[in-house]
């Protein structure tokens, strides 16, 4: 259980209106991340990890709509805040880094300028001071020769360096919460570890909470205090990392853990979990979206999922848990 949450998400639901029907991308998603702690959101591709992050940041696609829930950052509900209120926290209190750092940066603006843009908006600096502060930030994320690099464009840098720049942008205003959406996808293995270490160190330095989104359960186990497992827009299980590995309760989590033999494997490479995610546009989605893949399915699984109180240290959305 989390005593002092940096962010508390409750019953978040999101839909996308598309030509081929309404996609119920998130349903009743709840989790919290404590101040200075790391929570991992783990799940297969399409399970709704990015949509969760975008909903919190208020950067959903125009087709997407939050249909219910709250996301409390202190006393502010991010999902129902006015654009003005959101403007005051986005990039300042909560920041985000993305996968594919090379396309996530403006291709025709020097990276130093991109950092300076954020500083000018959020930090108390003048136009004249901003470039020097941007160079300082580049040094802080471990870029050598930062004064020269500040003038470079993203296409002149490696993926790992671009991700360092992204981190500098995200941390420019020293936020209290960072959402890292698969920050190491597309980077080589050594760079992956370096980037994760860098995020960990900087987070510890400024006491920042982190939501770490990944496919990789093993990586999540190394880095996060709590893990939330997502499946088809549901959080099926949420617990402390050790507890989750010692006593997985949801059948899906158990399958995932059993299927993660070593640290190198990511969920997408594992074919051992039978079935696939249900089509989220279906009108007859069952209450438990895992039930059609589930070996422990009961007749009672057709009723609405049990809702556990958020105080519970180990929540599981299942009628027949292990």
């Amino acid at each position, binding site marked *: 259980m989390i005593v002092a949450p940096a962010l508390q998400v409750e019953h978040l639901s999101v839909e996308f209106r598309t030509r081929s029907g309404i996609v119920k991308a998130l349903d009743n998603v709840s989790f919290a991340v404590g101040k200075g702690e790391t929570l991992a959101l783990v799940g297969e591709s399409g399970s709704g990890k990015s949509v969760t992050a975008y909903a919190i940041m208020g*950067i959903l696609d125009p087709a997407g709509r939050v249909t219910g829930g709250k996301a409390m950052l202190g006393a502010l509900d991010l999902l129902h805040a006015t654009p003005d209120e959101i403007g005051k926290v986005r*990039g300042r209190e909560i920041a985000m880094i*993305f996968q594919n750092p090379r396309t996530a*940066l*403006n*291709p025709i603006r020097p990276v130093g300028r991109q950092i300076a*843009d954020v500083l000018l908006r959020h930090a108390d600096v003048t136009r004249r001071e901003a470039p020097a502060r941007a160079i300082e930030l580049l040094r802080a994320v471990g870029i050598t020769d930062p004064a020269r690099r500040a003038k470079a464009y993203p296409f002149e840098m490696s993926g790992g360096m671009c991700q360092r720049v992204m981190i500098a942008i995200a941390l420019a205003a020293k936020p209290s919460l960072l959402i890292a959406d698969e920050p190491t996808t597309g980077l080589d293995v050594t760079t992956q570890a370096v980037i994760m270490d860098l995020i960990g160190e900087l987070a510890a330095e400024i006491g920042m909470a982190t939501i770490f989104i990944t496919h990789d359960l093993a990586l999540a186990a190394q880095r996060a205090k709590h893990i939330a497992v997502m499946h088809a827009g549901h959080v099926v299980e949420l617990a402390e990392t050790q507890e989750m590995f010692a006593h997985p309760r949801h059948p899906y989590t158990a399958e995932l853990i059993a299927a993660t033999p070593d640290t190198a494997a990511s969920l997408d490479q594992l074919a051992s979990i039978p079935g696939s995610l249900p089509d989220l546009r279906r009108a007859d989605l069952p209450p438990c979206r895992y039930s059609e893949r589930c070996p422990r399915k009961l007749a009672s699984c057709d009723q609405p999922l049990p809702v556990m109180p958020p105080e519970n240290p180990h929540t599981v959305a299942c009628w027949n848990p292990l």
Partner: protein
Amino acid sequence: MGSMLLKRVLAAIPSLIGVVIVTFLLTRALPGDPAAYFAGPAATKEAIEQIRATLGLDQPLIIQFFHYVVDLAHGDLGKSLTTGQPVAEEIRARLPASAELTLLGLIVSMAIAIPLGIMAATKPGSIIDHTCRIVTTAGVSLPVFFTGLILVYVFYYLLGWAPAPLGRLDVFYSAPPTVTGFYLIDSLIARDPETFVAALKQLILPALTLGIFSLAPIARMTRASMLSVLSSDFVRTARASGLAPYTVIVTYAFRNAMLPVITTLGMVFSFLLGANVLVEKVFAWPGIGSFAVEALIASDFAPVQGFVLTMAILYVALNLLIDVLYGLIDPRVRLEA
């Protein structure tokens, strides 16, 4: 950047040579006999032949071409048969009239189309978006001379707001001393606000006609390009880092969206050079378009050749300008060069 420019200029030379050859052959292949036209309807066969000989038109094509190229190398574009004036001089006098009109038309249309396209893209499905769609469909379906005539009918004939569509200046004014040849600029240099206003009044309707003509492609390209940039990863990053909406849309999105818009502007500009011919006719504009049409009707070779060559050079210069703009906006282009 400098070496890139030099390379582009050198690369344009073969196409200019091609233009010289093709225009020469084309004008010779056109129906109509300049000697007969020049001699007049009552002339005898012998008189026509004599004129043909003085014009050098009885010589083999290759010799005629040789003379043409030698003259061209001396900056001599020949003489107009109908007016007797040197073509180079006539083009020099008339080009600013066309250029002023075309540029103003382009500015009018950019000033409307670009903001319209941006707003349509930032609010898809809104009233602005629908307006943009209507404007772009209407814009392409109106022939340019028709728009011109309608504007003259409404604003001159019915409402009387605009002056008579009779050239660059009302007869009561005299042209400002020539510096650039653009009346708007020259009258400002001469500190003559009255002439400036008078010249502007004459320009409004024809420029608007050209503006309406080129509105559609610019607005459509701006909208499409903005839509694709707005859904790109780096705009999402800019939003997530809480930059002001203006910064996101203008500094981040629009600067990236500008590249295809600039290409479109180049294309539109060359369309406009063509549309000019009609608009100049409707508004009795003393530009090079009307000059070329009259020469064409009279089978007057030299002005037509001069006109096509001028257009080709303008076109090459325009493409150079676009390359330069591209390089200024996109660092990746600079690197390739």
